[in-house]
């Protein structure tokens, strides 16, 4: 892997203000406004689980997902600048190009999660046990793999103009389908559908931090299945995308 190339990819990431605001500030702002104002609430029907704790782990999963999607979305701007075509005319291997995109998406997601944990701890949120915290964070970061691939596909298929609405609406749909925005009802058709959507398992990963179970075989199957499928489609989208834009 070419470290100079990676270094500048990351530098570009943090210099892009609009991108940083979208993927870092939005989940954090949601947490600070909604979480802070309901700080003392306890979620009914639970064993004294504080709303703000639940909301922090949920927002960590949501923020990670947005960072993952937005990582690939930058490709649309690079294509419209003719940059992607130019990169194809360098010895940069497609595999290394995609690794670069996946890593930058991960850096974004990790920053988002870290910021939420810091904000949460300032608000007095505590997760019981390091093991539980590590399991939650690890599963969240695995669970966003399909979304990194989806972001790359979107980057190659959409234009700069259609990207923002597609990202906003796409993220909202996945959040609702996966039950990321609240405790939700855990039965019925919504859940049956939700279990096959990868964002559901990001939400489940978040819940590990507040006493939920780690993924069973179905969770691994859904996340890995979508990762492989979308990963293959992302590689194909990159290979086919050689036209002038």
């Amino acid at each position, binding site marked *: 892997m070419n470290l*100079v190339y990676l270094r*500048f990819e990351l*530098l570009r990431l943090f*210099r892009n203000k609009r991108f940083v605001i979208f993927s870092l500030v939005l989940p954090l702002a949601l947490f600070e406004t909604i979480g802070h104002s309901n700080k003392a609430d306890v979620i009914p029907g639970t064993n004294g689980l504080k709303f703000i704790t639940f909301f922090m782990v949920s927002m960590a999963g949501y923020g990670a997902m947005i960072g993952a999607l937005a990582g690939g979305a930058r490709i649309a701007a*690079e294509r*419209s600048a*003719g*940059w992607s075509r130019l990169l194809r*005319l360098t010895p940069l291997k497609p595999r290394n190009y995609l690794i670069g995109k996946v890593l930058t998406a991960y850096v974004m997601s990790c920053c988002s999660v870290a910021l939420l944990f810091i904000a949460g701890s300032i608000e007095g949120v505590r997760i019981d046990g390091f093991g539980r915290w590590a399991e939650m964070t690890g599963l969240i970061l695995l669970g966003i793999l399909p979304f990194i691939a989806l972001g790359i596909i979107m980057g190659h298929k959409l234009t700069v103009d259609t990207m923002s609405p597609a990202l906003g609406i796409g993220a909202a749909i996945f959040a609702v389908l996966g039950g990321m925005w609240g405790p939700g009802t855990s039965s019925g058709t919504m859940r049956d559908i939700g279990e096959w959507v990868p964002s559901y398992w990001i939400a489940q990963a978040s819940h590990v931090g507040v006493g939920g179970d780690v993924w069973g075989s179905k969770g691994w199957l859904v996340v890995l299945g979508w990762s492989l499928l979308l990963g293959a489609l992302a590689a194909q989208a990159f290979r086919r995308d*050689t036209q002038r834009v």
Partner: protein
Amino acid sequence: MTTMSAGIELISLAKTFNGPNGPVHAVRGVDITIAPGETVALLGPNGAGKSTTIDMLLGLLHPDAGTVSLFGMTPAEAVAAGAIGVMLQSGAVLRDLSVRELLTMMASLYPKPLDVGEALELAGITDIAKQRSDKLSGGQTQRVRFALAMISNPDLLVLDEPTVALDVEARRDFWATMRGFSERGKTVIFATHYLEEADSYSDRIILLARGEVVADGPPTEIKARVGSRTIRATLAGVGADVLEQLPGVSRAERRGEAITLICSDSDAALRALLTTYEDARDLNVSGAGLEQAFLELTADAGDLS
């Protein structure tokens, strides 16, 4: 026999696109051989197939038929070896990096790149090295893109309409810079639709029209062919074959009473026409213009579609 001495070979290249009104034959059977060190202009009007030919040469487009060989390699192999430097028609400058950072990033991708400082100097942009690349003028941006094309220290430099957005002065500056690089023994192929540019800066002009090579030779020869003027007049009773014998006339046509003389020397032709045929009237002399010249050159080839 070494493959390294081989230059660039395009053999029977063809590409057809599906357009809204049926298939568009963008390139139909192009054969071009270029020796190492040559500077070649691909000259043609819009839609002649220049960009499609270049895209196939670079491996960005797969030809429907024919082969491309670059120094004995396929386009993909030549790209992987860092043997090609490319300046695309537009864009290709990222916003979030300075000029120096952009060049450093790109240099890191190649096996034997130029020193970044040397590339900056060659392109004449040392003074703007620290500026963000989105805050540059058109001419400066063009120089940055040229530096990006040179940074790999390529054997072949491909420039697709490199001066299309530049004013006259910036254009002249650009070509002076390019000359500096090609004098290092590089092979250069550039596409343009300016005859003067092809004439002044290439060793050889390849004329493309309607997806075919219609002329290929040194600039002086091509210029004589497409730099022609046309005389139109009304004149009855004289055959085209007779008119073709007039001094300065290379070709004559007749449609009813209207005659058209394609001239290599329109002054001599006009003088001769008026002296020989006193009843010639409605005279009109026009510079052929590149488009017109192309149409006339391709008229001989017949319509293939």
